[in-house]
């Protein structure tokens, strides 16, 4: 075993560092993650950084050169992400577009779609959003109800999407809708690319628990989409959506925010009864458990990377990252507030320990356990796909979509 880069990997890392050093300052330690709403300035900064990366060949490392990518390796992709993490780069609005939407377009797109969409997304000109979840369809995504009805060369869309991150400044959306309610739920879906400026689309921001708004409701009222906006065949929408979700699992990965290093630093700074909190055995017990979990995740990730670096698919160890890190984040935030004593309730970044890092994390950690597959859904996936346990009993099996029981919510 060794943790070193191969000579080729080391050369790439050096190249990445040279690029980053030339264009970005290093991150300050223990800086709070942004849980305020993204401003137009934030979006502009993200676009500018995306363009800079694309111009230097670091934006689409896995992308084919035909679309402005590098046609590089998974290891290069990982190495760049590792290096970029150390710098004060703007919060990105391109995960959905570059990481998830465009790989899906590349898998199913027509030549016209391929010529039109990937390049502007990569170069930071166009932002994408994911129009999947609905009020009555989240974990059970295939239960979605937004309807599209064929009308000549167009489709007419009516319905509602919800929790759409960054919808309010997105240029395009990846939309999955129901085109046939008389067949089984997975079979009646079709996928579209939608211009967010199309008449009939209304976007209403939703306030999150932090008070900020980074996601929205998106209403569709008689929205006309030309058939050439369809991605994949009619009735093939589930397959296209799954491709996008598979890429989501890949991008979402781990939860940012305070981790072992931050809670450890706090425990050394805080005093309980005149001695450092870190010397208290109850505190130690928590710290040790988080260290073990953080290290375990890190080495599980290295095992996956080893598989990738050998040109193999990562093993099942890859599936545990978000499940473990999201809860850990929430627990660390909770405990960080406790450690600060009565001052723990203070959110003012000028007064709170580490600029309010733990208080902010408390208010975004819950989303990490929900978005991109809830904890419960991830456990189902591990149980069924990794351990091979039987599928859940389900009430909608074998039924046409319009025969499936529904609730009040």
């Amino acid at each position, binding site marked *: *075993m*060794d*943790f*070193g*880069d*191969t000579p080729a*990997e080391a050369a790439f890392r050096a190249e990445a560092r040279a690029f980053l050093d030339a264009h970005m300052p290093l991150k300050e330690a223990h800086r709070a993650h942004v849980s305020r709403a993204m401003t137009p300035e934030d979006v502009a900064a993200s676009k500018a950084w995306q363009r800079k990366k694309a111009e230097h060949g670091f934006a689409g490392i896995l992308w084919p050169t035909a679309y402005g990518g590098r046609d590089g390796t998974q*290891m290069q992709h990982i190495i760049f992400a590792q290096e970029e993490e150390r710098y004060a780069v703007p919060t990105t609005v391109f995960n959905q577009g570059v990481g998830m939407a465009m790989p899906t377009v590349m898998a199913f797109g027509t030549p016209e779609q391929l010529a039109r969409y990937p390049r502007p997304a990569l170069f930071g000109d166009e932002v994408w959003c994911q129009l999947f979840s609905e009020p009555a369809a989240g974990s059970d995504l295939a239960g979605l109800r937004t309807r599209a009805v064929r009308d000549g060369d167009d489709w007419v869309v009516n319905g509602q999407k919800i929790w759409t991150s960054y919808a309010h400044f997105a240029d395009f959306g990846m939309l999955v809708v129901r085109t046939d309610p008389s067949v089984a739920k997975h079979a009646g879906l079709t996928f579209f690319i939608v211009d967010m400026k199309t008449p009939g689309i209304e976007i209403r921001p939703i306030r999150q628990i932090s008070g900020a708004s980074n996601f929205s409701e998106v209403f569709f009222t008689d929205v006309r989409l030309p058939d050439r906006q369809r991605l994949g065949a009619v009735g093939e929408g589930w397959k296209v959506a799954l491709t996008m979700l598979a890429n989501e699992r890949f991008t979402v990965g781990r939860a940012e925010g305070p981790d072992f290093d931050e809670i*450890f630093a706090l425990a*050394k700074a805080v005093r309980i009864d005149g001695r450092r909190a*870190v010397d208290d*055995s109850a505190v*130690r*017990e928590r*710290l*040790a*458990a988080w*260290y*073990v*979990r953080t*290290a*375990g*995740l*890190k*080495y*599980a990730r*290295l*095992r996956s*990377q*080893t*598989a990738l*670096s050998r040109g193999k698919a990562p093993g*099942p*160890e890859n599936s*545990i990252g978000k*499940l*473990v890190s999201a809860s850990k984040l929430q627990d660390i935030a909770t405990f960080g507030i406790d450690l600060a004593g009565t001052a723990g309730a203070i959110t003012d970044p000028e007064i709170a320990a580490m600029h309010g890092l733990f208080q902010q994390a408390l208010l975004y950690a819950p989303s990490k356990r929900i978005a991109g597959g809830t904890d*419960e859904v*991830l*456990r*189902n996936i*591990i*149980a*069924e796909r*990794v*351990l*091979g*346990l*039987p*599928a*859940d*009993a389900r009430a909608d099996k074998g039924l046409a979509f319009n025969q499936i029981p529904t609730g009040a919510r």
Partner: protein
Amino acid sequence: MNFDFSEDVKTMREEVRRVLRDRYPRGEVRRAVDAGARFDRDFWRLLGDMGWLGVAVPERFGGAELGHEALCMIVEEVGAALPPVPFMASVGAAEALLAFGSEAQCARWLPGLACGETIGCVAPGEPLASSIAATGGRLTGEKLPVIDGDIADIAVVMATDGLYLVELTAPGVERRAIETLDLVRSGIRLTLEDAPAEKLAGGDAAQLLDRLAVLAAFEAVGGAQAALDMAVGYAQERYAFGRPIGSFQAIKHKLADVYVATELARSNAYYGAWALAHEAALPVAAAAARLGASEAFTLAAKENIQVHGGMGFTWESDCHLYYRRARALAVDLGAGWYWRDRLVEQLDRAEAA
């Protein structure tokens, strides 16, 4: 990046599994325990002949010189199969010699340990090394419990001023059997009364514990995986309310959590294996491997019983073999509090430096 066992070790794993499965399929260990056969001498000889006992021992001392990765892999598989042989005790003693013995000490003891003619054990006791001190090359004090001490010929004894090798048939050595949680391993009370002892050239109790903790972590990961496999198998076959119990989420989620804990533990153990050859990283790596593995094995063993329902509470289900081993293993080389303290202190020191 190369953070995985080598292809050679992976191939060898198949062979190791086959040998263990042939002689100790599920149920066979319990039958041996029931028959009072706590030490399977024939199987021990076989392990010696196949080179497992000296797998990490250099060729010049009679070993196979396949390195620690191979040893960790075998330990993991032995941890899953639970054969009644003093494998961990003896490779632990060999590890102590290998890491801390002089050339002459290695030449004197390792060939016997590597082929199985000599059986070793380790006497950590608790609270660790504090109770035994040496005067003029002789030891006086008590260690309790010493695992497989009744079968062993020699013991590596942790003392306040270093590590000592004691021949267990020497005058001044008294061994008395004691019952422990673990049915497959015997424990003794080891009383030393001015017993002749040879000091190892280097090392102290904490350093040896770090190395043994990595091995024990693999043993626990093997046990956790075996308990998880058992539970998954049962959950697929047992029906209730007209469907397999493995289709109930309460069962699925429990087993998903066991899987996650086991994967994290395995990943920490791998890093521990690497750290055996990288001294500066070892104390932290060993503590993390140890704590993660104890947590995973404890969880896997108790949920294995739970998934089996009433059947899991029976002697014949074998679930208790893992349940017992998990707890015994978690305290044998120092309980959780020792390792948590060591972990946090090492991290604290590393940052202060």
